[in-house]
């Protein structure tokens, strides 16, 4: 059940690396302004968790930690799919990935909490947003697709 070839001294190395990955990811998430880099930082936090889990799993000599890691990676993958879709939509709206450009919702009367002067310049593109689309073929879908009329900016 327990593994004498894997003492606590070995485990602590894994824990330190896991915690370091977690901390670096947290730092990146809080300091970066690019939406994709922010998401990658969050993924790095998850890698730190995975290393910690696998280390504990080896130390205790059971499989639970590894099963946990697999489940966690599965959930993270589905979150990544949603994240990329969301980031794509945001990019098509303002043609920029800078997160500081999204500060419309805040307390009334307060200034923007992060200075946007250093943000990538963005110019609202006139006209409706454009999305990549496939040429329709086969039967017409039941719900007629409403054209996207919302303006950028």
């Amino acid at each position, binding site marked *: 059940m327990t593994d004498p070839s894997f003492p606590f001294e070995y485990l602590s190395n894994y824990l330190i690396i896991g915690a370091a990955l977690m901390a670096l*990811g947290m730092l990146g*998430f809080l300091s970066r302004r690019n939406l994709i880099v922010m998401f990658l930082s969050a993924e790095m936090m998850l890698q730190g968790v995975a290393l*910690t889990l696998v280390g504990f799993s080896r130390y205790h000599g059971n499989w639970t930690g590894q099963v*946990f890691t697999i489940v966690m990676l599965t959930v993270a993958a589905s*979150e990544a799919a*949603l994240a990329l879709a*969301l980031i794509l939509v945001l990019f098509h709206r303002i043609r920029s990935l800078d997160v500081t450009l999204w500060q419309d919702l805040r307390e009334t009367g307060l200034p923007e909490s992060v200075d946007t002067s250093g943000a990538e310049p963005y110019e609202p593109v006139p006209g409706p947003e454009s999305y990549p689309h496939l040429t329709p073929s086969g039967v017409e879908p*039941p719900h007629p697709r409403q054209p996207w009329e919302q303006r950028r900016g």
Partner: protein
Amino acid sequence: MIPDQSETLSRTILVLLPEIVLALSAAAIMVAGPFFRRGRSLWAGLSAAAIGASLLALLAVSGSGTDAFAYGSVALNDALSVYGRFAFLITGLILLGLAHNQVGDDRAAEFFGALLFVISGAMLVCAANELIFLFVGLELVSIPTYLLLYLPRRNRTTQEATTKYFFLSVFSSALLLFGFAYLYGLTGVSNLKALAFLMGGGGEVITTGTAAIGSIAVVFVTAGLGFRVAAVPFHFYAPDVYQGAPTVITALLAWIPKGIGFVAMIRVLTSVVSVGEPMLSERAVFLAWLIAAATLILGNTVALVQTNLKRLFAYSSIAHAGYLMVGVAAAFARVEDPANLGPYSGAEGIVFYLAAYALMTLGAFGVILYLEGSGERAETIDDLSGLSRTRPLLSLAMALCLFSLAGVPPLAGFWGKFFIFASAWTAEPIQGIPSLQLLAVIGVINAAIGAYYYLRIVAAIYYGTPARSPAAESRSAAGWPTAMAVGTCAVLSLILGLIPGPLQSASRRAAVAAIGQPAPGTSGPEGEDETETDDVALVRPRPVR
């Protein structure tokens, strides 16, 4: 006798029948959506039928106990599980009533499918008896919530709100997982009942050094769940997201993540830590003490200056997270004998408060939705002024919900606050940290501050002058499901306030079940086998130094 694996598995699937019904219906609705040219009422009706079927399944399985399998199965069917799942199904029906006309026809199938997934995820959290399973339940709530936030309306503010919620939710999941990893590392088991058993000295796991690992686990799990329940210092997303989201999703966000966050805290933290080493439990009480006091004070004072209704309810929901954290602080306090709880326990107060909170919050948001549905503006407090002249019944429902939120007797919200403060007041004092009685006093003072901004809305409704003449109004009515949902919330808030007995005894049973440690194998089908705690011994780890 160790219950054998296949029997444990079949019993687990049996007690998870309500969730399976709900998730399968959700998947079927989402798959069928693109192929049928039907309006949203069909999908709403199907969802209501699915919730009804799930309710029947829950009633059918509610008798089958899982005590004999508690140390081996991933899901429990104890009193807390049945209570929570019942509450989430009922509030799911209420939310469905509020949401039935809030989304376009072409996106209705995905919307209602996601709503059903959220409810089934919340029910999984209530039933979970395993770290991995609990995490999956929490994510089954989070991921469809992103869809729900984005689907009904696609303008710039909704996109901003979705982005903020999404990124912070991913961040909080990572914190939560880090805490779970250390909780698992502490003992090497991920079954929550076995974890509590080992922490309670069952396996000599806790040596002096591991209080540090336990503290890491408690801090990170509290942080991860603190985002879900919007407790200070993880509250800052709440006002923005509540304001930017469609109103019905704001109602959902105000209730479901908070509900599952606190149920998860009872399952993972308080039931495990309070029976463990005294030093760890003291640190946990102190952490919860600080969070509760900060949340209460910040939520209530900032709410005083709000004029936007949704922002006001956001800060009010932060304040309510503070009251519930008072209960968590009381529940963290060391329990010597899990079989014998004191007269007032923190978990009992939390569970009661959550049910009352669900009704009053959903009712208040329902009134706003009803007004929006009938074409009136309901964005600021001024928009509501003089509402009683034009809509007396709706104003009465709003007043009942607001009085209940303020904690005015004899409404459900009063009893929730009463049980929580009583549990904090009667908790044993601990050396070296501020006493819980002081926290109860802070809570009572904050309840008085909170009453001000709720009563301000009531005063505007009853004594304000209407902004426009009643004759000029269209006076159209919103759909009957919305009206019925609002009515149910208001009436239940009143009834549970007048007759709190049944709900209180149910929450008492839930609290006892959450902390109880069933004797392994003794209540199994055979019952005669009295061998030692074999299934725990199987997973008994070696201590972490």
